[in-house]
């Protein structure tokens, strides 16, 4: 009986002259009629680290779920020049690593190893490369030696790190994180900030933690009611108290 593993994820061919993520005039409404995104446009260049802030229900998570094709029909989105369609979807999912807010949703395998290996395995990579990538990803988040631990026995901070590793093992071009510092104690939060600072990768991070934003992200995007209401240098936007106030944000 043969080993029937489905085909390998095709090689990524992205155009370096194009923006890594390009969102143009994106509209989205949930099936119940609730409009979550209205005519939203955003451009992310390679190497940028961007904070996405805004009140709850502003559409931040919805936007993030669009960026690797979980929501939406793919129109209005390009990743590295590739349009998001059925054919490109597996490639784009490998390019854009999405880390969910609740690590309990992200970590669904019994052991840490299996969770970190999930992405590379499902890209159809050979065994030795899967093993190598798991090792590398765990090293990135400083969690070597946790391979055989059960995910649900870890602390929240450790779970967050593993959740990031599960995506890093796919060697993505960009990391999309949904409220990574929520629910962390000060020490774990500090550790996470250092981790995000040191990762040499494009990043879009949604958060309510404006102190972290000021420290880590040169560019900041403010969303409210499904629209981008401000996009610019973090220092400038954070100095604009009227703007922050209008969108339910507090100056750190």
């Amino acid at each position, binding site marked *: 009986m043969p080993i029937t593993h489905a085909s390998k994820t095709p090689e990524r061919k992205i155009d370096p002259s194009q923006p890594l993520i390009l969102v143009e005039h994106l509209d989205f409404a949930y099936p119940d009629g609730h409009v979550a995104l209205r005519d939203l446009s955003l451009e992310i260049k390679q190497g940028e680290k961007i904070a996405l802030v805004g009140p709850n229900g502003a559409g931040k998570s919805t936007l993030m779920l669009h960026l690797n094709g979980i929501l939406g029909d793919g129109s209005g989105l390009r990743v590295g020049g590739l349009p998001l369609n059925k054919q490109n979807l597996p490639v784009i999912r490998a390019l854009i690593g999405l880390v*969910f807010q*609740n690590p309990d949703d992200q970590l669904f395998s019994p052991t840490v190893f299996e969770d970190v290996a999930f992405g590379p395995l499902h890209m159809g990579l050979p065994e030795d490369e899967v093993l190598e990538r798991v090792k590398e990803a765990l090293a990135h988040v400083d969690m070597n030696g946790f391979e055989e631990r059960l995910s649900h026995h870890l602390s929240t901070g450790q779970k967050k790190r593993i959740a990031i590793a599960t995506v890093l093992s796919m060697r993505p071009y960009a990391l999309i994180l949904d409220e990574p510092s929520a629910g962390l104690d000060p020490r774990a939060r500090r550790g996470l900030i250092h981790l995000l600072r040191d990762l040499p990768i494009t990043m879009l991070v949604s958060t309510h933690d404006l102190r972290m934003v000021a420290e880590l992200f040169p560019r900041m995007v403010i969303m409210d009611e499904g629209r981008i209401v401000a996009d610019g240098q973090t220092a400038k936007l954070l100095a604009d108290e009227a703007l922050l106030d209008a969108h339910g944000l507090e100056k750190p």
Partner: protein
Amino acid sequence: MIHNNLFDRYYATESPLHRLSPSVKVLLTVFFILSNALLPDGHWIGFGISWAVIFLLNWVGQLGWGYTFKRSFIALPFALAAVTAIFALPGKTLAEFDVLFWHLLATDAGLLRFFSIVVRSWLSVQVAILLVATTQFPDLIHALEHLRLPRMLITVIAFLYRYIFVLSDEVLRLLRARQARSAVLPGQSGGGTVFWRAKIAGNMVGQLFLRSYERSDRIYNAMLARGYQGHLRTLNRHAMHTRDWVILILSSAALLFLQIFTHF
């Protein structure tokens, strides 16, 4: 979060049984259950041999002698469904009962059938426990794929397994929330009427459905985001070796022989 490991019965160790190809294990498990079902009523030697095989496999799998036996009691109550057999078969009457407006006759043939059914299901449950204890779940799913079970069915099994943890976690949380608010004032009986309790329980079931529905959606998204395309994959190889073929053929032959021995 208290994760419920109630359903995860894999017993991690190294043994010949663990190393055997999952496909072979699945096939032999099905054959063994079939063989149990086909053993004649009251053929205690046949049942004894099957039981001895289970015992031996416990030892081969390095699970400890009583591993499957200890865990098999959970399924015994279901065997009680066969209790009607005692009264349904014609034979020598052993006892008579009057239940409501029924007049029930317990017969010797019926009793024999009943005990045979109990033993059969007991044996079958044990071999299933053995399969799950020695085979990791993704491998089991793969084995079913290799055995050409319909894709849809396999996916349903895979997700049932995935989400049963989610469900049991939610149940634990709901029960804890109810407990935390179930206070009783001194000198008063708490709890309300049966009707009221039933309503609360009903609401909890509804909550459970909604919560686990949403949570399973998020987990599915997390799987999609990491390239899940409808197959669960594993690093373990599933090539059939000579050893697997030999064991498959020998064991099938042994089961066939057992059938011939008990029937003729």
